[in-house]
C-alpha cells in the first residue's frame, strides 16, 4: 500500500479527480414496482435528466475540457439513444448502472448476470461500445457480485464508500476488480435532491444552500488533492443539471481547474492506470 504523499498520478500530477454522473432518468424503485406508470409528474421529474439536463451538462464539460464518466441504466439508453450517443461522441465514458436501476443487493446472482448481459447488448447495439465500468445502483451488492462483474468484462467498480484511493477486490480466476470509491459528501442527492410522493429525502428535508454546498464540495476536492488522493463524484444530471445548479457546477469546475496539479480522468483511465501500477509492484 502506498503511503499518503507517495502516490504518483500520471503526468506527475498530485491528485486525481474522476468526475462521474449517474444518469438515472426515471429508472429506480418506482419503475421496478410499477408505481411510476401512474405518476406522470414523477416520471417527468426523472426523465428531465437525459432529456433536458444532460445536454447542458455536456456543454459545460466541453467548455472546461473535462472528461467524465456516466453510469447509465441501459433502459435510459433505449429511451434516449441520441442523447446518450452524444456522451460518447464528446469523449466521455458510459458505464454500467443496471438495466432499470435494480438494486444488486435485492436480486439473485442469476438476475444480476441477466441485467449485465442485457445492458451489454444494449450498449453494443445503440452506443457501439463495450463498457468496462460499473456502479451498483441503490447502494449495496452481494458477495457474488465482483465475480459476476469480472465475468461480464468489467474491470472496475465505483460502488463503495470507505476509502480515498482505488483498491483491489480479489476475484477468483481473474485479475482483481478495481474499486474507485465514492463519498456521500460528493453526492448531489445528499444536499440538493427534493421530491414529494415519493418523498426524498424521507423526512422531507430542506434543499441546502447552493453556496454552502459548493463550499463543501470545494473543501472535499482541495483536501483530497492536497493529500494526493483520488476523488470521484455521484452527481445526477436531473439534480445538479438544473439551470441554477449548472451554475453551481460551473463555479465548482472553475475552482477545480484553477489548480494545475490535478489529473482529471475518466474512471476507466483511473482503473487502467491502477492496474498497470499494480503490475509494477
Amino acid at each position, binding site marked *: 500500500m502506498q503511503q499518503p504523499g507517495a502516490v504518483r498520478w500520471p503526468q506527475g500530477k498530485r491528485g486525481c479527480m474522476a468526475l462521474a454522473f449517474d444518469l438515472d432518468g426515471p429508472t429506480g424503485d418506482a419503475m421496478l414496482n410499477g408505481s411510476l406508470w401512474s405518476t406522470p409528474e414523477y416520471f417527468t*421529474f426523472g426523465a428531465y435528466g437525459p432529456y433536458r439536463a444532460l445536454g447542458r451538462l455536456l456543454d459545460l464539460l466541453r467548455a472546461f475540457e473535462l472528461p467524465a464518466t456516466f453510469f447509465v441504466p441501459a433502459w435510459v439508453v433505449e429511451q434516449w439513444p441520441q442523447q446518450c450517443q452524444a456522451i460518447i461522441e464528446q469523449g466521455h465514458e458510459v458505464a454500467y448502472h443496471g438495466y432499470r436501476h435494480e438494486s444488486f443487493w435485492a436480486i439473485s446472482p442469476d438476475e444480476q448476470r441477466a441485467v449485465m448481459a442485457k445492458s451489454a447488448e444494449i450498449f453494443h447495439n445503440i452506443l457501439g461500445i463495450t463498457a468496462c465500468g460499473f456502479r451498483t445502483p441503490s447502494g449495496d451488492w452481494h458477495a457474488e457480485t465482483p465475480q459476476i462483474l469480472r465475468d461480464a468484462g468489467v474491470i472496475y467498480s465505483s460502488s463503495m464508500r470507505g476509502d480515498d484511493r482505488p483498491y483491489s477486490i480479489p476475484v477468483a480466476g481473474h485479475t482483481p476488480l478495481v474499486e474507485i470509491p465514492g463519498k456521500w459528501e460528493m453526492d448531489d442527492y445528499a444536499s440538493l435532491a427534493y421530491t414529494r410522493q415519493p418523498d426524498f429525502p424521507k423526512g*422531507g428535508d430542506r434543499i441546502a444552500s447552493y453556496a454552502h454546498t459548493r463550499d463543501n464540495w470545494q473543501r472535499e476536492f482541495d483536501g483530497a488533492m492536497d493529500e494526493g488522493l483520488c476523488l470521484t463524484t455521484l452527481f445526477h444530471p436531473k439534480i445538479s443539471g438544473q439551470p441554477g445548479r449548472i*451554475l453551481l457546477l460551473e463555479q465548482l469546475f472553475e475552482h477545480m481547474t484553477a489548480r494545475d496539479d490535478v489529473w482529471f480522468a475518466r474512471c476507466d483511465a483511473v482503473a487502467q492506470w491502477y492496474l498497470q501500477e499494480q503490475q509494477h509492484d
Partner: protein
Amino acid sequence: MTEPSRWPLGFQSAAILTLDFNDIHGILTQAPAVAGRDKTLSVWRYGTLRGVDRLLALLAEKQLKATWCMPAIVAEEQPELVLRMVADGHEIACSGDMHEDFSLLTLEQQIASVTRGCDKLAHITGSPIVGFRTPAGQWKPGLAAALIERGIRWSSSWRGDDLPYFHPGTRLVELPMHYTLEDEPYFAFNLSPAIPPGQSRIAPYAETLANMTQDFHGFHRFGLCYLLRLHPEIIGTAGRIGLLRALLDTLQQHNVWIATAEQAAAHWQTQPDNDVSHPAEVFTRIIGGAHGEHA
C-alpha cells in the same frame, strides 16, 4: 446550450409567478390528520388572513400580474379576496373543486372535480377559467383531452422541462414546475403533527433567496421559463415578503418577460410540437403499451 429565443418581443427568458391559494384545504389533502386541529390549521389560514394582502400589495407596487391557483371551495369561502385579485388584473386558475387528491379519483371523478371547480370559479370571477393545476396527486390517462374539451388551455402540474410543452396528442400547454422554485420545500413547518415529516429546520432566508436568485440567473442565461410556485401562508409573512420583493427586483433588472400563465401558454401555441424524446411523449408512449412496460 445556445438556442434561439423562444419568447416574444426580444425577451431573453420568461418568468411566471404562480400563487397557490388553498387556505386549509391544501394541508387537509396533504395531511388529513390535521382535521379539527385548530392551532395547526391556523398555520395555513394565515395566508387568507394576512398573506394574500401582502402579496397583492407587493404585486401592485411592482406592477406585476400573477396567476392565482385555487380550488373552488376557497373562492366560495373567500369571494371578496378573489374579487380583489380579479380587480387587480390577476389570473385565476382552478385546482379542482374541493382540492381533492387526484390519486384517489377515477378519471371521471377527476373530470367532475375540474368541471365543477371551473364552473364555480367562473361564476364568482365572472370570466371563464382557462388554467388548471392538479390540487394533489396524479393524472389519470385521458385527463389532458378532457381538460381541452372543457376550455382549459394550460396546466401547471407536471415537471420534466425548463420550457413549456404540450400534453401529448393535444395542444394543452404544460408550464412545468421545479421543486427548487417552490417556497414549501424551504419553509413549510408545523411542530405537531410534524410537517415536514422529519421536522427539519426552516431553511435560512438569506440562503434560500440566494438559491432562488441563482436559479433565476440559470433560467435567464439559457432562455428558459422560470416558474415560481409560492403560497400566501408561506411567502406572505412580514419577514419573507421581503425575499420575494428582492427576487422580483432582480427579475425586473433583466430582459425577462414576466407573464401570467395564460399569456405564456397563449404564446406557446406559436411553438412547434414536442420532440419525440420529450419526457411527456416517452411516458405516453409507454403507458400506451407500445413497450409493454407497465402492468
